[in-house]
């Protein structure tokens, strides 16, 4: 059992009563979803706070999906797909990347702390990267605390 | 038509014949070289350091003064041409550098000057066919090797008066004057340049190789476009001759001297007598 695994196990017990962040993950079918599957096949362990929604490609992800996740109680959002150049659809992830740039401004405008949104490229073989990402993001969101602003706004 | 003209340090002194024959020829061809009212030495070498912009100060000052005089400036000396053209490109390629250097300038320089060599005026503005029409004394049958050296040509992308490996601009001019240009392999090799100061043995070997290459290819005269090339070729012959009795000397003249001659200037006007290796016997022998 490696170090991350030990640590998270303690955490799980410990945070039982504490704040449990809710994290939404939008991932592409070809790379990151398969990478996450591989983490399972390898029986790795990671924080259970993530809920994956599988999409065809990161290029399919509408920035509004992210806002919508926050509106529905997410405390953090993960977006991950194939590495640049590896896109199953050749250039879909480039579109995604370009879109994020515009999207960041929108996020800041709506008052969402960009630390709550993580973009990453994880291939079908990078199970460990996936594990680390989920653990790190969970930890960071924990530090940031629950995301209240949008919920209040909604009310 | 008046064209602002930057003579540079050497043409004002030891290379007077270069300067004078060019000016006189210009008049015949319908333009005038108008010397800049204020100028300084360009530095005689493009600064090769990247971290120090002060080397660019002198040439930038030249450019600033020239820009005040017009949109174009012309030079005769290959080195001046090289330094000014590369400086201009360096400033325009790096806006930050330009801004920094301008902080040291009395007169701001914006990078918009057009730097042309006298040869380019003859080729592109006057046209070699017009030059040919103006020839009064065709130098028929004289076999001339055009020696370019390095500064007129290199680096190709930055200076580039012509194809850096196979230039023909001087040969094309020579043909217009009635000469028989001789191509020789070493015409784009360096003469030894500033090693004239101290390492004369190296200069002799380099210049000697160039001249041998020209002579073996049939050249009876060599023309240059740079006072330093001229000096190195001339001076080396003295030494080579003293150690190698079989060496036949060859007159080395500025291309403008032949131009002036062909356009009808006298041998005095073109200062032919000032050349170290006299070309006049050859002219007489050929009856031109």
């Amino acid at each position: 059992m490696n170090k991350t695994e030990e640590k998270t196990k303690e955490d799980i017990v410990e945070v039982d009563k504490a704040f449990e962040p809710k994290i939404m993950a939008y991932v592409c079918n070809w790379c990151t979803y398969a990478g996450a599957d591989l983490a399972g096949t390898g029986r790795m362990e990671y924080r259970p706070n993530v809920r994956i929604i599988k999409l065809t490609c990161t290029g399919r992800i509408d920035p509004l999906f992210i806002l919508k996740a926050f509106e529905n109680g997410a405390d953090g959002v993960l977006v991950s797909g194939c590495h640049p150049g590896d896109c199953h659809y050749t250039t879909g992830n480039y579109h995604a990347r370009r879109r994020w740039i515009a999207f960041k401004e929108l996020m800041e405008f709506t008052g969402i702390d960009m630390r709550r949104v993580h973009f990453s490229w994880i291939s079908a073989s990078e199970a460990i990267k996936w594990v680390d990402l989920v653990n790190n993001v969970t930890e960071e969101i924990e530090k940031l605390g629950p995301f209240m602003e949008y919920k209040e706004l909604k009310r | 038509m008046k064209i602002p003209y930057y003579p540079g340090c050497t043409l004002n002194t030891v290379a007077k014949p270069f300067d004078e024959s060019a000016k006189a020829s210009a008049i015949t061809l319908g333009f005038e070289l108008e010397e800049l009212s204020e100028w300084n030495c360009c530095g005689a070498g493009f600064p090769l350091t990247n971290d120090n912009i002060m080397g660019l100060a002198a040439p930038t000052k030249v450019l600033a003064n020239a820009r005040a005089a017009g949109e174009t400036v012309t030079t005769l000396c290959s080195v001046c041409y090289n330094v000014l053209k590369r400086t201009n490109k360096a400033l325009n390629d790096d806006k930050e550098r330009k801004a920094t250097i301008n902080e040291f300038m009395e007169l701001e320089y914006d990078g918009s000057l057009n730097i042309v060599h006298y040869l380019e005026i003859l080729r592109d503005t006057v046209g070699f066919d017009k030059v040919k029409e103006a020839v009064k004394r065709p130098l028929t049958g004289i076999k001339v090797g055009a020696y370019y050296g390095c500064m007129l040509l290199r680096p190709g992308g930055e200076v580039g008066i012509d194809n850096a490996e196979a230039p023909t601009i001087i040969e094309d001019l020579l043909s217009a004057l009635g000469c028989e240009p001789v191509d020789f392999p070493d015409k784009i090799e360096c003469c030894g340049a500033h090693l004239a100061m101290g390492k004369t043995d190296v200069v002799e070997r380099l210049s000697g190789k160039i001249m041998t290459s020209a002579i073996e290819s049939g050249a009876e005269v060599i023309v240059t476009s740079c006072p330093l090339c001229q000096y190195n070729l001339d001076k080396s012959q003295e030494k080579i001759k003293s150690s190698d009795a079989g060496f036949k000397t060859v007159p080395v003249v500025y291309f403008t001297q032949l131009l002036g001659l062909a356009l009808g200037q006298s041998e005095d006007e073109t200062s032919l007598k000032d050349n170290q290796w006299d070309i006049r016997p050859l002219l007489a022998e050929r009856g031109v």
Partner: protein
Amino acid sequence: MPRIGVFVCQCGNNIESTVDTQKVADELKEMPGVAYTCSYKFMCSSPGQEMFKNAIKDNDLDGVIVSACSPHMHEKTFRKASEAAGLNPYKCEVANIREQCSWVHHDETKKVGTVKSLDLTRMMLERLKRNKPLKATSIPVTKKALVIGGGISGIQAALDIADGGVEVVLVEREPSIGGNMARLSETFPTMDCSQCILTPKMVEADLHENIKILTYAEVEKVDGYIGNFTITINKKAKYVDESTCTGCGECWEKCPFKADSEFELGLNKRKVIYTPFPQSVPNIPVIDAPKCPKIQKDKCGLCAKVCGPGSIDFTQKDEIVTEHVGAIIVATGFELMPNEHFGEYGYGKIKDVVSGLQFERLASSSGPTGGKIERPSDGKTPESIVFIQCAGSRDEAKGVSYCSKICCMYTAKHTMLYKHKVHEGKSYVFYMDIRAGGKRYEEFVRKAIEDDGAMYLRGRVSRVYEKNGKIMVQGVDTLSNGQQVEIEADMVVLATALISRKGADSFAQKLGIGYDKDKFYSEYHPKLKPVETVTAGIYLSGTCVGPMDIPESVSMGSAAASKALGLFSSDKMAREPITADVNKTTCNACWDCVTACPYTAIAKTEVKDREGNIVQMLAEVNVGLCQGCGVCVAACRSKSIDLAGYTDEQVYAAINAF
């Protein structure tokens, strides 16, 4: 109210050990729209699937969720079973509670796993409620292939497809097929004569009942998509009636005018009416119209007089032909960097500085010298030859940055050919590295050095110039103290860079395929899909992809053919129904989707009224081309385009259930 069934799999103990599957099933049962739930030991087993099918029928289910392993594992299995039970397969979804839940959260109290499984299944439930039944489309496949380019690679592809029983149209722009290989003398690493191995293939292609060869022809336009391409081809006028010409050669024997031979690369002349080389296929001449005085000024006409069958037709015009094909193989090959490129190597000026391909002609027994190595300037046998490798290759400053890959090998071959023909000759090779990574290639190069005495010098040549009738080569040998070396040579051969053909980029645009910075065509994936392109149904073969030798060009031809044959193996091609569709009422013709689509699957179309006036412009998805990435959906700001199977509605439903 929908009637949805939820099947929670225990996967033996794989899921059950950390997820209380019964609890998941029970809680889901309470959700609106859920008509049936269960927990089961092994859903994928035969009894599991029987149970699954029966449950669908018995409970009249209109949608099912299997909460089990990853959909990458068994989605297909369960969708097939759904279909067998009369349910649309796209009304079956899999929630991943194994790889992404039970296997990564090792909490034996089952608390963590159960909560997460519940969430994942619930999100899937809301999504499923919005799933539309989709029908896997199938498109008919035209069983005919187009091969563009008749070099060795294209010929191989055409032969393999034709042998597979499918018709092929082979389009070649020159008067004969054969490509660059026809120019080669002998070929590394086995040194067999190029014509001897190529000619039989050319003839076989010519005689094959399934192959139609169109020479002197070019592809003008490509419409359609995989399985259904329409090709417009321009057949240039040959001024010779192909149906009657016997190839007797009377015409070119008698033609009084000559021009530089393209095939001989300027080393020889040909007649104005000509075949490029004696073994040309088809063996039918063409008239070089701009050079023929009859066509230009109505003078001469000799060829028509001598032609027995009366095949010469000076009035012939270019002809447009249309072909319908299901697959396209692009095999347009390479050319060499043009001669003018090498100023410091005296090329163009010094006659005896030749390119590698010109040297092939000089060494070829059917070449201008009959296979004797003679210098072009004066026909003298060279006593020494300097070979300069990497001429233009690996030269970011003035040439191309890549390695041309084959020139190390053909230079070694050239030194051998030279030595075998001129025993007294001495060859020198300037190289930077020797790249001989192929079967028996390194041994081949060593043979050139050790058996045939080629002097290899590591360094680049700085310049080549003429002096007293000799060619002076000035370079360096970096292995002997970086010393300048000079060689007096009689001839210089440049191993010039292989480059993409002029116009390769615009041709790629015509085809809708990608190309790289050097204008070589891009594979779909450089390792795993080396013959596919981003456009389904268009395959690549040979040196149009990058430098390669004959073995590779041939392998690629066969690989491309096998892809095409795979496509042709059934009459119809099933397509995933995951494709985009435009809402005609809201599309405002901004074309954002058109530029975003990586497959150029979206076209700008005109909507016309009855009079034929254009009333509206619309984006329209070609489902034949659409690969279902969904990039367009996110690009459309007016939300006028959606992706079946991954609609906005479905995704938002899942998010809302989060």
